[in-house]
């Protein structure tokens, strides 16, 4: 199986997200999935850009899809924002003929064409549907059953489900099923599926803080060892934003490591924490790593 990879803007360029790319590459390699990066990938123009101008956003996102189409490949991305944006392109082009005409014109003016044949896939859905939980278990070499984690499905991997077509978002289970293969206890708690406020960052910072405060409180009260995210924006919020929430809302006991979903899978596959960038996160992951490694790091 071969997929075109769209990494997005944040994943390959932000310190705490580099491990997302590293772990994704290692997991896919272990599972014998061949990948080729979208050539000279550009911004996917996600929701915030759609806010400024939808037509521009659709045309921008179609650029990367057109590149994948030229290669005859479907598009795989670990970023929920990218995933959502690419799914929207096909939907809009299919639903609104006028929009298709307009976007065709724009792309033609830069020498591109997008027919609409590329299917965008989210990494976690791909692992579940195309690889399968059994296969992950087969490759598992490390017991992670000492871990209890708070799994954040986030918003843009699932909602709205008619558009994204993975699982109904109110009580999703597919990603929990994957973690279950490694013995990880994915804890159910109130607020697990609610928004982190990421898209309000830089626009309504105080509101973004308050929403994040609720999410971090939810996870903290659930007593988990850490949080796992499937979205770049969720990670930036929970990991990078955590210290300021701790100060602002005087949450002295707040210290939750925030992992990327494929980092957990890669740990289960036997990769070392350093190989998957666990030392690059803002909130130290040492305690969680120590728990897996039986107290000592290699």
């Amino acid at each position, binding site marked *: 199986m071969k997929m075109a990879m769209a990494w997005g803007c944040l994943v*390959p360029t932000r310190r705490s997200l580099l491990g997302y790319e590293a772990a994704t590459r290692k997991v896919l390699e272990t599972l014998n999935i061949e990948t080729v990066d979208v050539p000279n990938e550009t911004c996917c123009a996600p929701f915030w850009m759609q806010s400024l101008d939808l037509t521009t956003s659709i045309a921008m996102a179609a*650029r990367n899809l057109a590149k994948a189409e030229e290669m005859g490949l479907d598009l795989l991305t670990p970023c929920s924002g990218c995933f959502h944006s690419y799914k929207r392109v096909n939907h809009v082009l299919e639903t609104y003929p006028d929009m298709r005409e307009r976007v065709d014109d724009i792309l033609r003016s*830069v020498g591109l064409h997008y027919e609409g044949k590329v299917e965008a896939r989210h990494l976690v859905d791909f692992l579940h549907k195309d690889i399968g939980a059994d296969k992950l278990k087969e490759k598992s070499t490390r017991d992670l059953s000492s871990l209890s984690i708070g799994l954040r499905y986030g918003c843009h991997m699932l*909602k*709205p489900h008619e558009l994204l077509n993975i699982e109904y978002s109110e009580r999703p289970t597919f990603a929990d099923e994957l973690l279950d293969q490694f013995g990880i206890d994915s804890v159910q708690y109130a607020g697990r599926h609610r*928004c982190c406020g990421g898209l309000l960052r830089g626009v309504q910072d105080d*509101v973004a803080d308050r929403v994040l*405060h609720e999410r971090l409180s939810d996870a903290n009260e659930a007593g988990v060892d850490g949080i796992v995210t499937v979205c770049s924006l969720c990670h930036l919020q929970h990991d990078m934003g955590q210290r300021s929430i701790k100060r602002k809302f005087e949450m002295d006991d707040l210290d939750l490591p925030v992992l990327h979903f494929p980092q957990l899978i890669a740990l289960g596959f036997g990769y070392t924490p350093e190989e998957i960038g666990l030392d690059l996160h803002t909130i130290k992951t040492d305690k969680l790593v120590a728990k897996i490694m039986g107290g000592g790091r290699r």
Partner: protein
Amino acid sequence: MEQTDKKGYRGDFPVRDEDVTSSFKYEVADWVGGEGLLRCLKCGACSGGCPVGSVIDYRPRKVLGNVLLGLKDEVLSSDQIWLCAACFTCEERCVQQVNFTDVVTVLRNMASREGNAAPGYIKMAEMVMENGRVTARTGLVDKMREKLGLPPLQDPDVEQLRAIMRAAGLNDVIAANKKGAVSK
């Protein structure tokens, strides 16, 4: 709970015919994604699930109500359309498929053309125009990538992206917001 909108729920009510643009809802419904608006029953399921509404006094139903009433200027020039975090919970729950998030996108597009976009998003758009990404490349990250065994960072085709943005009209939107000028 804080009032985000200082006028409060009943500030300028009752609304009278002469204060509204009665065609506004049809204008909105005419845009891609705005068509669900006219199906709204104002039942409030959107407000019930709103994560922003649980930390501040923000109610999607009120925004929809204002649009349906025709309070065009108030809606397009105020914060109320820029407080949605785009979590799509309301869209998921709405029995009438109003798709509030999509309606908000239409309203934001309209406001942006009038120079009322959220400044933070305009900054991000300029960043994308400059770099092809919403982030800048740094030598430090290049080094970290190398240390992690990641391939060298690709350069985005920024020329092509700029041409797309220009052809689609984003430059005009940015210009309208830089000058604060109205270009309809």
